[in-house]
């Protein structure tokens, strides 16, 4: 039986879709059979982040309305044959799907896949309710900013109210240099405020922008964000992995040398 994980945040633009794409890719790299579902009806994005936007024939709404079979709508990833995407519909709205239909869909996918990741839309309305309906556990993404952390707290409360007990936190876009200067909350600060267990810290890394431009998730690649996402995947599987040292330690001479490298 597969596990259904919802990736959610409350606030938009904190990295839900990027995290879904990268964690899904990482789990596939670790040999798991993975299905990604974009539940953001009307604002689909997971397809472009995965680089699969040209292969869409059917979508989530087609599946729940029985216009096609699930297998017809699942798009196989470019690089990993055990990774699939069920894209969202672009022309419908959130009311096109109900929580019961989502439960049924994830229930069916459980038999086929090890992990089903649901990319949740921003907000706490219908789209959120649909996304969490069939979920066993949740990954809450936040950035170390007041607005994102406050929304994450609301989401955690709503997940609890909906009896999703296993909830973990991803602190995204952390800048170690700013934390050190006292100008950004640390992951410890965020964990203290939200009082849930941490599962990953992803540094603010320009490689993410490049990988999104290319439509190729960077999990496992040789950069800090790539390593951080791979570590999250291992922790999702239950492995204990130490946290990366994100500190940018530069001596005076290194800073001096960096000026000339430009």
């Amino acid at each position: 039986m597969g596990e259904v994980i919802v990736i959610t945040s409350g606030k938009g633009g904190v990295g839900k879709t990027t995290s879904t794409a990268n964690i899904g890719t990482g789990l596939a790299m670790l040999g798991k059979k993975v299905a990604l579902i974009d539940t953001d009806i009307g604002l689909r994005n997971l397809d472009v982040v995965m680089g699969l936007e040209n292969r869409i024939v059917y979508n989530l709404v087609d599946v729940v309305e029985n216009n096609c079979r699930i297998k017809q709508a699942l798009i196989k990833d470019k690089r990993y044959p055990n990774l699939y995407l069920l894209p969202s519909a672009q022309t419908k709205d959130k009311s096109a799907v109900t929580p019961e239909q989502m439960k049924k869909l994830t229930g069916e996918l459980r038999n086929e896949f090890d992990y089903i990741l649901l990319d949740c839309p921003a907000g706490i309305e219908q789209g959120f309710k649909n996304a969490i309906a069939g979920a066993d556990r949740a990954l809450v993404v936040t950035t170390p900013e007041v607005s994102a952390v406050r929304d994450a707290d609301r989401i955690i409360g709503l997940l609890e109210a909906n009896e999703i007990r296993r909830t973990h936190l991803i602190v995204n876009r952390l800048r170690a240099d700013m934390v050190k200067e006292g100008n950004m909350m640390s992951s410890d600060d965020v964990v203290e405020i939200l009082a849930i267990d941490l599962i990953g810290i992803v540094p603010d890394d320009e490689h993410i922008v490049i990988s999104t431009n290319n439509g190729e998730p960077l999990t496992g690649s040789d950069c800090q964000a790539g390593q951080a996402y791979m570590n999250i995947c291992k922790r999702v599987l239950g492995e204990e992995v130490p946290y990366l040292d994100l500190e940018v330690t530069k001596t005076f001479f290194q800073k001096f040398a960096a000026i000339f490298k430009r």
Partner: protein
Amino acid sequence: MGFLSNWFKSSESSSDIAKNRLKVAITSDRAICSPELMEQMKNDIIKVISKYVDIDTDGLDIKVTRTELDDDSGTVNAVLASIPIRATKPLRR
């Protein structure tokens, strides 16, 4: 430049300010009641406890926070009060 501005600025960093503001905002978000009602509850708690002990109202901290249940079955919102006692009042009968 960094250390110079650090030198002159007040002791609280912007990340501390963010953290403290968030704690206050989240406390009232979590509370089912409004900040005014929270304030009323706080005053009532002070009133009741003051009947028995002499408390330090400046060091008082009452907040709504998420706490793990003892049997590990999940978490609940709970009112946590930290009320420093100056002295106990002699019992009057």
